């Protein structure tokens, strides 16, 4: 089944049906924010949100997870959680980032089972944005408010009902499994959805990103990095909220009488990130660290895995406490 219409009032039934064999998460109000939270049969879904504060990557690459524990003097690996999940209401920018992360966590030689197993077990239902924020710039980086990259199903909010369009086999299977709850969409509905996506896309300001990789390479030794970083307080918000940032570290800890190794998100904006035990630190200034983050996204990943690791979600722009604006950095670099 490729397309289906479901009334918003019927969603509870769908959630209940899906919950039989999967954990369902969806947009739920928490105070002023909307968070991606586990859905029960009575949970009220929110459709009035720009995006979640935290990127959806955290469900596949959590802030921290135990990878090994010590048993009888020997470290043993803990398996990644093996539960099916359905993520509803993911914004297209966050979904677009997932295939990028898959490229990082799987390669010809080493696979990170913790990320890959979770991704394999998840069905991503993206919800197209009809009113993008002024800080959003996905269309400048190959995305769209109705982008389909990385999702299994793309949903459109048509007011009283949703139109779901399956993108992958996994998505088709999910729709097929709950076929009874869906109606076939009318042509008008499909057209309305497409028009909505196009209108949202047209409403967005575009920033120029042509040639950004070459320009970034050329700007490597430019003074702009230290100039911009003078304000930076090295808080790492930009990296933690970034849908594509994927740096991590390990930390061993003792909890009660259990010794475990924890894989934690880490951030290149911290001075300690590259500090070696000898005291040597290849990146001593905040300018070097900020440059690393930008170069990693706009140059290194392009060379290594063929993608710009920025989806234009605008979180770093919006949440940077000192108003360092990535859009301005891109503009500066391109000068």
């Amino acid at each position, binding site marked *: 089944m490729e397309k289906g219409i479901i009334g918003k009032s019927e969603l509870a039934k769908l959630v209940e049906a899906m919950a039989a064999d999967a954990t369902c998460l969806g947009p739920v109000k928490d*105070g*002023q*924010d909307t968070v991606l939270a586990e859905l029960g049969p009575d949970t009220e879904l929110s459709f009035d949100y*720009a995006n979640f*504060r*935290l990127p959806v990557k*955290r469900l596949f690459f*959590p*802030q*921290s997870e*135990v990878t090994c524990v010590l048993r009888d003097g020997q470290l043993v690996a803990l398996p990644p959680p093996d539960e099916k999940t359905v993520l509803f209401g993911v914004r297209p920018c966050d979904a677009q980032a997932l295939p990028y992360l898959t490229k990082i966590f799987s390669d010809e030689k080493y696979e990170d089972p913790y990320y890959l197993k979770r991704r394999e077990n998840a069905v991503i239902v993206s919800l197209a944005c009809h*009113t993008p*924020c*002024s*800080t959003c710039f996905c269309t400048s980086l190959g995305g769209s408010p109705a982008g389909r990259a990385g999702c299994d199903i793309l949903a459109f909010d048509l007011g009283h009902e949703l139109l779901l369009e399956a993108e992958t086999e996994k998505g088709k299977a999910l729709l097929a499994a709950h076929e009874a709850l869906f109606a076939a969409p009318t042509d008008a509905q499909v057209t309305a959805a497409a028009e909505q996506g196009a209108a949202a896309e047209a409403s967005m300001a575009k920033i120029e990103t042509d040639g950004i990789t070459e320009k970034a390479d050329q700007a490597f030794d430019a003074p702009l990095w230290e100039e911009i970083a*003078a*304000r930076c*307080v*090295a*808080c*790492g*918000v930009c990296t*933690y*909220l970034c849908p594509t940032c994927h740096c991590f570290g390990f*930390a*061993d*800890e003792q*909890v009660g009488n259990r010794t475990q190794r*924890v894989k*934690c*998100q880490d*951030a290149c904006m911290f001075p*300690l990130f590259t500090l070696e035990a000898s005291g040597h630190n290849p990146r001593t200034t905040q300018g070097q660290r900020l440059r690393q983050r930008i170069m990693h996204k706009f140059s290194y990943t392009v060379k290594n895995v063929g993608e710009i690791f920025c989806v234009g979600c605008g979180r770093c*722009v*919006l*949440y940077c*406490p*000192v*108003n360092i*604006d990535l*859009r*301005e950095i891109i503009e500066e670099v391109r000068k």
Partner: protein
Amino acid sequence: MTKMQDAQNRLRETVKDLFAQQKVDLVVGFEAGSLPLRTRVCFLTSADEADRLVWNAFCTNNPAVYIPRLFQRPASPREEYKPPKLGIVAKACDARAVHKLLEEHQAPRENVTIIGMPCRGMACRDKVVIQAGDEVVEAVESTEGAVEIKTRGGASHRFELQDLLQQACLDCPQAAPEHVDVQIEGASRRDTTRRYEGLKNFEAMSADQRWEYFRHELSKCIRCYACRQVCPTCYCKTCFADMAKPRWTGAGDGLSDVMFYHIGRLMHQAGRCVECDACTRACPVGIDLKTFTRKLGKDVERLFDYVPGLRPDEAPLLCAFEDDDTEEFVTDG
């Protein structure tokens, strides 16, 4: 011309004078930001740049956070230490933070010129968005005490600044910054009677409700430590949370480790937190940190009659004692 803009012009002229008299070679102030309702900190090195300075209801950041860094000694003793002659544009809370840092020897007093700003309080971004009910795409402080905004949907609103003030400003103990080197004239907030009003709801809760509130707020924490990084009085070279030897905190984002970090940080802020709420504004997941820092401040004020940063040259709270300090929690046999 509004009062704020008057103050802005006076600030620009003052900064030009300070450069001309060679009293400063670096000024930290605010310039226009890239987003509505925002300004950002800028670093000026000559009088020519002074016209970049702005002064309005969106100068929320605490520029004192940059002081320890600007006065950091070079890693090698062979390198000459050349501290700047710093001018710092300061609201009341900023000035308190500067005094705290001076007291803790983070900069030589003679190298810092505090430019005290008249402040009616700063607009809380969240409050503006709630009142506007939509994303704000443009905001100006138009007339005295009013903020005019435009929303994404095209609507225009005019709000009284008084209704938009940050909690930090409502709680501010000062009508204007004190113990400054240069005072810029202008309208200041005069109402200092609402201090700790924001705590009332929290304090009215039962212990279990307070616990539940604390637990819920901290369960959002992703341990990015942004709260620490933007805090002017969090400048330890190696924070206890980053220490490897001893490793104080566990690595995870489980509640126990998160609480350990936050209570540990609060302890380190006792008698030091100037209640500027930089932590709360910076928190990317919206934890209500201010309730806890404010509770701490209130305790410290009640127990020791101590308000950080109000009196220059006072002894740091936890490095001193009085013989008749409170004994209210000492159990007796």
